[in-house]
């Protein structure tokens, strides 16, 4: 299957197979007014299967979201059809307003203007906890 190369934008590569739709949602790409291609289960020499996402516009992409969903993903910045930058993404220490705390007893459940902030508490297992109530994200 072929998807045309993009001219200016971002290619997120090496997404763990199956993670692309979650990434699409958290990056709020449903609200983006530009072509976005998601390739699921592409063949990968390293990973066996992987997902790829191509965003055909020069829009800001939240690297923290990518690092949270899939710290192994790579982000390629494309200008005039040429890759000008390749970034590997690690797990961010803090996540702000990416996910919401689900604990009904948390202060964020009643005070709507508070930012939902999660801190990485276990890098090995990729565990994030709400900074207010310590509920797992």
């Amino acid at each position, binding site marked *: 299957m072929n998807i045309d190369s993009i001219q200016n934008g971002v290619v997120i590569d090496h997404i763990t197979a199956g993670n692309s739709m979650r990434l699409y949602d958290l990056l709020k790409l449903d609200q983006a007014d530009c072509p976005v291609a998601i390739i699921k289960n592409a063949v990968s020499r390293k990973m066996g299967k992987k997902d790829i996402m191509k965003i055909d516009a020069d829009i800001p992409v939240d690297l923290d979201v990518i690092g949270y969903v899939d710290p192994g993903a790579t982000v390629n910045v494309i200008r005039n059809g040429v890759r000008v930058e390749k970034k590997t993404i690690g797990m961010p220490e803090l996540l702000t307003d990416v996910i919401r705390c689900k*604990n009904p*007893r*948390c*202060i*964020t*459940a*009643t*005070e709507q*203007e*508070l930012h939902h902030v999660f801190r990485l*508490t*276990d890098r090995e297992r990729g565990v994030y*906890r*709400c*900074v*207010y*109530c*310590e*509920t*797992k994200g």
Partner: protein
Amino acid sequence: MRSVIDILDLSTAEIDELIETAGDIIKNPANYAELCRGKKLATLFFEPSTRTRLSFEAAMYELGGNVLSVAGGNTSSAAKGESVADTVKTVSCYADIIAMRHPKEGAALVAANNASVPVINGGDGGHCHPTQTLADLLTIRREKGGFSGLTVGLCGDLKFGRTVHSLINALSRYENMRFVLISPEELKLPSYVKNDVLKRKNIPYEQTTDLLSVIPSLDVLYMTRVQRERFFNEEDYLRLKDSYILTPEKLKTAKEDMCVLHPLPRVNEISVAVDDDPRACYFKQVKNGKYMRMALILMLLKEAGTI
């Protein structure tokens, strides 16, 4: 601005220093009677409390300071929908230090992030209650002489019991601790406390539902109340509230120098008949709480340059 929201905001060296100060306050109260003259503590208690609020207030009075008090969310602007941030920004204009209790978890952190004076968490929902832990630690230190090598049994509601989580966090930083976790299945210690604290630090622990079988091995027995206010479902509360009731009969096989602690209030989980047993230390714990709060108020006001 330094605040204390979680017991882990204090290093073990600072806790040891607070214990030393509290010990000195007990010995020489007159030396401390004027240290906070002209300073004000605001106690903002948006959830019912007798001990903690009065303990903070007594602590400030014994340091020669004054107290401004809001007791009950329905008597303050919180009832009108004022945010925690706005409340503490306002109170910072009147007071030198704030002690706050709030039913929502994390409310104390929001307060600390917005106040311009130190904030002490007097309990934020089921999350943290660091000054209770300070009272527990002083009591254990005074009764047992230290923390190393102790077997500490925690009994009752280990799921929602914030004092239990804080105490485990604090004690796990000392060497050779061992924990026995005694609770009904539904109120077991949350896995994140087990994984992040006990397993990560390789601290030995045992889980059981049977208090009687483990009581002979304990140096400290920390009883807790099954808290009605933590349940969304009254039926679950009624089913679990009488899981453990400590009686003189059950204490027969316990060590003679075991110490029984309870953060109070109790409902019926420790029979009144236990109160006369020399191992019952929960009213000493109340008194110790005041001394540790005095030591903490002093430490934070000194760090803030207020005294």
